[in-house]
Structures are given as structure tokens and as C-alpha cells.
């Protein structure tokens, strides 16, 4: 039979001889031993020191009553242990991340399953209840006969999350290690989903999650987060780690982030970053964010207009390119000036010996660094662009604006 944590809290515990031992005030999972087994029961008995019953000392469990298979003298005194996850204190009423539903939810109750082996019952944590049945149980337990609660809850729509899809949120890094809380499963989520989840959490919890992600994921998540949150997170981070994450970010995203930080902090982080990446970001920082220069990314693909398709492809294979963002290739003429762009799709269908200059997208569009963001948006709208090349005063390409930059600007308005 299934049990609920609520039905077990306050349960009376009896030993082998049928003597009353105490009331269950808390029970624990020891993730280092088994991820879902209830490992210890805390038995309180008035003003005496509380005892603890281990999972293999329990003979049977039913709502409101636990029977042990040992006598009272065999139980140990309770010693607090940071490596134990307390169901009442750490789980009930707290927020958790539902990995499959990709959101933050609050725990109303915990469902337990019984596992019988000769003369011993183990409880396994199967799922957490985040819906109305759990809420009703919490509210009425002890005030209304248990049978009535069971009838009532069966009429309510269940909302539960299987334990393996539950990701606990623990801001304290030491405790996180002791409780074996990893955020590996979070790394499988899309960065945008993860960012949305993090926006629901408190500052300390966000910090905890970012701290345990790998740098690449952390960078992707930071790029998706609300800018006020990114600055809060980065400021509290160890500068070395922050610099490592910034390095993983696209230069324009890194520049946007640094621009929101106090000058001293952003300088410190730039110092920590490798010279080449730091310089790129510094250059971007010099532009007003509301201009084409402030929107552009300096990582873009460019080739000479005189070479042919085969040469371009051969060379693309040898490069580490961000393929998700590669819609267009910028062409340069002999003076290293902007001479047009080639859509990758067109390159794909072109004959091997076709020259890049023959594949140019018409009309020839580019924009100056100082141009207002309104102008950029108008161009994207009018010509249905996906990328737009930004040129300097000498008409040399220095960056590109991609459509996602434009969309996120518009969405902010």
C-alpha cells in the first residue's frame, strides 16, 4: 500500500515488545547510500533525547503507526547529519525543479512505497505531490478521520512528479555535495528553459545552480537570463570562474553583460580573461548599446569575393564555426572592404567552380556602426533579413547583427 509522508509524520512507534518508543517527527533519505530509500526515522519522546531508527529496524508501517523489529535499547540517539535529506524540513513546502515539466514547483506531500523483505519494511520515495490531493492531506491530517481524507483526495485531480525527475535546490555548496545533488539533468534542458526556471528562484538558489553547471551551459544560460539577474549572479561569483564563463559567451553577449556591471568589476573580469577575448569584448563595449555597433557580434565568417565555392567549403570544414548562427558569409574585395554577402543556402546549391562574387545576395546591404537601432530594425523588417553586416567608416566589415539580436531588443520593448 502506498503511504504519504503526511500520514507518517507524528506516527507512534512501537518496539518489538509492543512498548511505545516515541513519535515520528522527521525522516531522512541518505542520498550517498540510496537515492530514494528512507534511511532513518527520528523518534521524539517528550523531553528525552530523540532516538533514531534505521531502515532495517522497521517491521511494518501503516498510517499513524510504525512497528520496529528491535527493542528500544537497540536504537541509537539522534545525531544531526548534514548528509541526510530531511523530508519535512528540506522537502515539504520547498520549491523543487520538475525536470520533465521544466518548471519550478512547490512540494505539498511526498508519496512513499513499501518494500517488504523478510520481517522488514523499507520505504522508498516514489514521487512528490504538487497538486490538490497533497494540499488537502496537509490541511486535514489529524483534524479529520484518515479514511475521509483518502476518499476526498481520490476525487481530486492528482499532480505528481516522479522522484527521478525531481531536482532539489540547495544554495549551500557543501550541503549540495553531501546530499549528492548534481545538476547534470539540468544541463540537458534547453538553456532558455533553464533560464526561465532560474528566474523563478531566489538569488541564493540561482547562484547555487549556476555554480554547479559546466561553463558552457552556464554561459548559454546567462545569455538567456534577464539582464538584471545576470549582473547579480556575475557580481557574486568568484571572478576567475566568471571570467571563464564570459570567455565561453559570444563577445556581444559578454559585452552586454559587462556593460551592466560597475566599471571596477567589469575591468577586473576583463583582466582575468585571456587577452584576445578580452580585447574583442573591450572593442564592443566602446559602442553605444542602442546603435548598430552596440548590437553587433564580432564573430562572423568572411572570405574574399574572388574564390570559388569549392575553396570556401574546403576551408569551412577546417574551421570551428558556430553553425547554428551561420546564415550568411561576408565577402571582401581586394581592399578588404565590404563587397556583399552570400547566403549559405545559395552556396550549397552553387556549382563547385562558381565564384563567390556571382552568388551575392541583392540588394547589397550594410550599416554603419553609429546607426540607430531603429534603423537596424527597419532594415531587417523591410528586407526580411537574417543577418546584416556592420561596416566602419572605411567600409570595412567589422561585425554582423543577427536576427535574434533584433528580436530580443524588440521583445524588451
Amino acid at each position, binding site marked *: 500500500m502506498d503511504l504519504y509522508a503526511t500520514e507518517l509524520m507524528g506516527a507512534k512507534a512501537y518496539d518489538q515488545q509492543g512498548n511505545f518508543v516515541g513519535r515520528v517527527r522527521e525522516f531522512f533519505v541518505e542520498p550517498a547510500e540510496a537515492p530514494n530509500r528512507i534511511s532513518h526515522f527520528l523518534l521524539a519522546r517528550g523531553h528525552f533525547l530523540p532516538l533514531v531508527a534505521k531502515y532495517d529496524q522497521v517491521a511494518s508501517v501503516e498510517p499513524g503507526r510504525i512497528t520496529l523489529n528491535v527493542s528500544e535499547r537497540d536504537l541509537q540517539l539522534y545525531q544531526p547529519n548534514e548528509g541526510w535529506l530531511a523530508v519535512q524540513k528540506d522537502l515539504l513546502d520547498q520549491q523543487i525543479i520538475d525536470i520533465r515539466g521544466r518548471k519550478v514547483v512547490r512540494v505539498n506531500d511526498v508519496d512513499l512505497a513499501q518494500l517488504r523483505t523478510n520481517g522488514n519494511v523499507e520505504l522508498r520515495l516514489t514521487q512528490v505531490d504538487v497538486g490538490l490531493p497533497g494540499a488537502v492531506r496537509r490541511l486535514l491530517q489529524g483534524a479529520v478521520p484518515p479514511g475521509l481524507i483518502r476518499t476526498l483526495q481520490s476525487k481530486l485531480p492528482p499532480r505528481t512528479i516522479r522522484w527521478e525527475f525531481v531536482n532539489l535546490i540547495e544554495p549551500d555548496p557543501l550541503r549540495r555535495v553531501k546530499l549528492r545533488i548534481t545538476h547534470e539533468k539540468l544541463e540537458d534542458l534547453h538553456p532558455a528553459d533553464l533560464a526561465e526556471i532560474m528566474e523563478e528562484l531566489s538569488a541564493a538558489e540561482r547562484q547555487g545552480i549556476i555554480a554547479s553547471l559546466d561553463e558552457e551551459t552556464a554561459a548559454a544560460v546567462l545569455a538567456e537570463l534577464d539582464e*538584471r539577474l545576470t549582473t547579480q549572479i556575475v557580481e557574486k561569483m568568484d571572478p576567475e570562474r566568471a571570467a571563464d564563463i564570459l570567455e565561453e559567451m559570444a563577445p556581444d553577449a559578454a559585452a552586454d553583460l559587462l556593460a551592466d556591471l560597475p566599471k571596477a568589476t567589469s575591468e577586473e573580469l576583463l583582466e582575468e580573461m585571456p587577452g584576445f577575448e578580452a580585447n574583442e569584448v573591450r572593442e564592443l563595449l566602446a559602442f*553605444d548599446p542602442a546603435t548598430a555597433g552596440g548590437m553587433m557580434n564580432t564573430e562572423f565568417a*568572411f572570405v574574399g569575393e574572388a574564390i570559388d565555392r569549392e575553396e570556401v567549403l574546403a576551408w569551412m570544414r577546417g574551421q570551428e564555426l558556430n553553425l547554428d548562427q551561420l546564415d550568411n558569409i561576408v565577402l571582401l574585395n581586394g581592399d578588404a572592404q565590404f563587397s556583399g554577402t552570400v547566403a549559405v543556402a545559395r552556396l550549397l546549391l552553387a556549382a563547385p567552380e562558381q565564384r563567390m562574387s556571382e552568388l551575392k545576395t541583392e540588394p547589397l546591404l550594410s550599416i554603419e556602426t553609429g546607426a540607430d537601432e531603429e534603423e537596424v530594425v527597419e532594415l531587417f523588417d523591410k528586407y526580411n533579413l537574417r543577418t546584416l553586416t556592420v561596416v566602419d567608416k572605411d567600409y570595412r*566589415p567589422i561585425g554582423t547583427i543577427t536576427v535574434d539580436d533584433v528580436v530580443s531588443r524588440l521583445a524588451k520593448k
Partner: protein
Amino acid sequence: MNWGIITGSLEGLRTRGTSLQQRIRGLRRRMTLLLAVVGPGLITSNVDNDAGGITTYTQAGSHYGYTLLWSLIPMTIALYVTEEMCARMGAITGKGLSDLIREEFGFRSTFFVMVVGFFVDLANVVAEFAGVAEAMSIFHVNKFIAVPVAALLVWILVLRGTYRQVEIVFLAACGFYVTYIISAVLAKPDWLLAARDTVIPLIHTDSGYWIMLTGLVGTTIAPWQFFYLQAGFVEKKVGPRQYPQARADVLIGSISCMVIVFFIIVCTAATLYTHGLRDINTAKEAAQSLAPLAGKWAAYLFAFGLLNASVFAASILPLSTAHVICEGLGFEAGVDHKFKDAPIFYWLYTVLIVVGAGVVLMTDRLWTILIFSQVGNGIWLPVVVIFILLLVNRRDLMGDYVNTLTFNIVAWVTAIAMIALTLVLAYTSIFPVSGSPAP
């Protein structure tokens, strides 16, 4: 030809434009930072001057002239101290008040807070719609037209808007309180006397005076506002670094709220009290009596102010209540969610408005409603304030941002004084003392 990043051509640009552009950038950043934080404090404090509030201030001015003005300064402090704790909790923990109550005090406490909160707030919503009915009757609009229209307007505003849009409308509503300042100027008050009575307490001994004083405090500091304030800052993602701005927002809000109270009392004192019309009990009576004394426009502005305040509060109260309940029970909440993502939030919101407006349409005893809501607030306030004080002093939640000893003393004194005064208000509302200004 090479793939990669061109850096050379940027060199020139960097050296030339940097300093000026960075300065512009810095200024712009500071402005957006402040504007991004301002809102919850200003809105919450101003919404305190709702229908019930304006009625009470009107009574205070017409019954006692300028003599109650001195209470505004201690009230500003009390308002600031209590609101600041919530702003701080929101900024440091990143959680709403009901979230914190749930996590630290468990499910049953939360449920109790939510259920009582719901009914107290519902009584307040009814009072706000009563204010709408009253204000519109001055403009000769029947309540059967005014109240449903107002309810629909309020409902649509939140249902269709994003948090930012809703907040802009709310901030604009704060601006309309200026009508009371104009009304007061049109009433040609004795500014010198008003100023003197603001700084020098002039204490009467009759019981009516004390009940009036209690009423002032009771209507100004309402329990639900703490939930709204904290949720507002959390929703705006205010963190420890933006906390100084949040605090400034709360301070500006508290002061501007009291400035409006000052002008309402001055306006009614200069006209009604001076001309012997001292048994004015409702804002409507006040507005009507104002016309022959200070001109038609003063009266209309007064009525418009009441309408604005009522609609304003009627949109925030249901919003705040729905928020609190959903947060506590773990349902999705917030105006940034779509209807299908947060159905319970929107249903609660709708029910509060429909029932609130419905009650006003079904009864003419609007006075009883107003009293009922004030009594509810009075009983409920101590509970909420004690929860706040317990939470804000928890070092595991607040770290170094727990109350300092001085702040704790000020806060507890404020809390106890507020509790004592509101209990008196609740008591006298149920058992009116003879000579009391209550109806």
C-alpha cells in the same frame, strides 16, 4: 583570405569614441536602473489613500480642522518602517511574503493566512467599488452603470496587460492624486496654521478625537499592502544591489502618500470645518458641500480624486490577493502568465472583482461595508506584521540584512502602536462611542 575576427579596423574607433560614449552609457544605465526599480513602493503607498482612506481624511478635516495634521509625520515613519522590511525581504530572499510564510511556517499557517486574507481583501474590494459608486454619483452617474463599467475596466487591464504596462497605468494613477492638491489650493486654506499644526502636536482629550486618530492610522497602513509590495519587488527582480533604489522607492512612496493626506485634510479643514459644516461623514457629502465654498471645480476635482483612488485600489487589491494565494498554495501566478498557464490566479482575480462589484450593486448600506473592511484590516494587521518581524529577523534567510537593534526597536514600537490603535478602531467600529464621528 582568412576566417575570423577583424580587429585592426576597430582600433581607431576605440580610441576616438570611447570616453564620451561610455559616459553616455553610464548615465543611461543609471537612469534605467532607477526607473526599473521604482514602482512597487510608490504604488503601494498611494493605494493606501483609497476610498476608505479618503473618507477618513475628509472626516478628520471637517471634524477637527487642522488639529490632526501632526499625526502625519509619525505615520510616515510607521509606514516607511513596515514597508521597508518587506522591500528588504523581497530584495534579499527573492521570495514573496507568502512564499516565505509557507517555507518557514508550513502549510497550515499559510492556508490560514490565505483564507483570512482573502475575506479581508474581499471586504476591501467591496469598499473600493462603493467608493466608485459614490464618486460617480457626484457626477450624476447611476451606480448600476458606473460600477460594472469600472469592474470591467479593471478586469481587462490586468488580463490583457503585461506587468510593465499594468505598472505604468498604476503609476499614472498615482499622478492623478494631484487633483487633491489643486482642490486644496482652490479652497484657500490658512497655510501658516496648517504648517504649525503639522509640526506642533495639539492633543485634544475627547474620545472622538482619539478614535479619529486611530482611524487615520488604520486606513493608512493596510495588511494586504505588504504582500503586494514584496511581490512587486520580487517580480521586478530587485536584488541586494538594487535594494538602495527599492528603499528610495518606498521612502518616496511613504512621503508622497502622506503629502496627499495632508492636502485632503487641509482642503476639508479650510472649507467645511471653517464654515461650520462639521458633521460631514462621507466623501460624497464633502464634495457636495465643497462646491458652494470653494467652487464647482474644487468639488469635481475632489470627486475625481475619489474615483481615481477607488478604481486604482480596486485593481490592485484583487491582483495582490490572487498573487498571495497562488504563491502560497504553489499555483502559477502573475500578470506575465497567460490565462491558461495560471487559471487559478485569474479565476481568483475575477471572483474578487465580480463579487466585490456585485455586493455594491445589491446593497445601499455602503457605510456598513466600509466599516466592515476597516475592522477586518484592523484585526488582520497585527498577524501580518508579526509574521514580517519574525521573518525579517531570521539570519538564515536575511544574512547581514536582518534588522539592526535600533530598527527592531522602532519596528516593534511601530507594530505594537499600530496593533493597539487598530484594535481600538476595530472595537469602536463595532461599538460606537457616543460623540464618535463614525456614522
